[in-house]
């Protein structure tokens, strides 16, 4: 077994725990979390805040569209597929239709290929099956951070 690996009771591997120091962002990135589930919404916000992002959240697709339409700008949007009032697919389509080009992650408990294709077609850049882990988030945050010119 390689160092840093272990076997868990489920036969899978446990990864070496990362720390939030693994990435230090130079810029204060902003993110919007759209999730109808209280727990998931607060958790995703907490995770992004721990990385140093400034976050807002809404609990339905309609509020997300309205927030963007009102002019709010974000570097990153995390959006769930199943949302009250207006679902994630339609909300994503409408946000993209407004000309918004920021990074959008579809973060959902769905795991099927059909759902993945649908969410990507609606306009998310990455389809993420919950939970959102550092292996996906860190490269994206690095990429977003580097988009800003160094002074």
């Amino acid at each position, binding site marked *: 077994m390689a160092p840093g690996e272990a076997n868990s009771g489920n036969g899978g591997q446990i990864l070496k725990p990362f720390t939030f120091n693994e990435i230090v962002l130079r810029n204060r990135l902003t993110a919007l979390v759209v999730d109808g589930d209280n727990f998931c919404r607060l958790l995703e916000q907490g995770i992004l805040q*721990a990385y140093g992002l400034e976050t807002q959240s809404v609990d339905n697709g309609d509020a997300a569209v309205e927030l963007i339409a009102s002019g709010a700008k974000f570097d990153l949007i995390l959006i769930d597929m199943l949302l009250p009032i207006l679902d994630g697919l339609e909300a994503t389509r409408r946000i993209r239709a407004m000309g918004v080009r920021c990074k959008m992650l579809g973060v959902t408990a769905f795991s099927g290929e059909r759902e993945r294709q649908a969410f990507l077609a609606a306009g998310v850049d990455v389809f993420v099956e919950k939970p959102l882990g550092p292996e996906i988030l860190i490269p994206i945050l690095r990429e977003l951070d580097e988009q800003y010119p160094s002074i």
Partner: protein
Amino acid sequence: MEVGQMQRRLVDYTKTLFMEGFLDAQFLQLQQLQDENNPDFVVEVVSLFFDDSEKLLNNLSMALDQPNVDFKKVDAHVHQLKGSSSSIGAQRVKNACIAFRNFCEEQNIDATLRCLQQVKHEYYLVKNKLETLLRLEQQIVAAGGSIPMIDMGF
């Protein structure tokens, strides 16, 4: 009991929970979100998970208790529970939800009732374990110690 002993007991207990599949790596990520700026993060997030889940389990019981079961509604609740349990790292609850959703698709009332019992069982097991884990952590902090980072090289 002195702090070093308490810390070792916590580490052993946590490792057992991983070995037995109750928690997965996602839970580690959560623990690492806790720091001096956010000292109660894990307790808050775990409490929220409990509230959320118990509401969902109630909704599920009600939905399955109807004369004409709306399986779409049942599936939506299970889907949500799958999302939140995977987000906190409650692996066995998540797996029970995955099985549950398969039976929802088949619209099999007996099987889904059994699945509900299974999910409830797994939920109450992990709830109990998380409460114990948090109590161990609180004891360490109260005694002036720090919560050890779990080394997964075992």
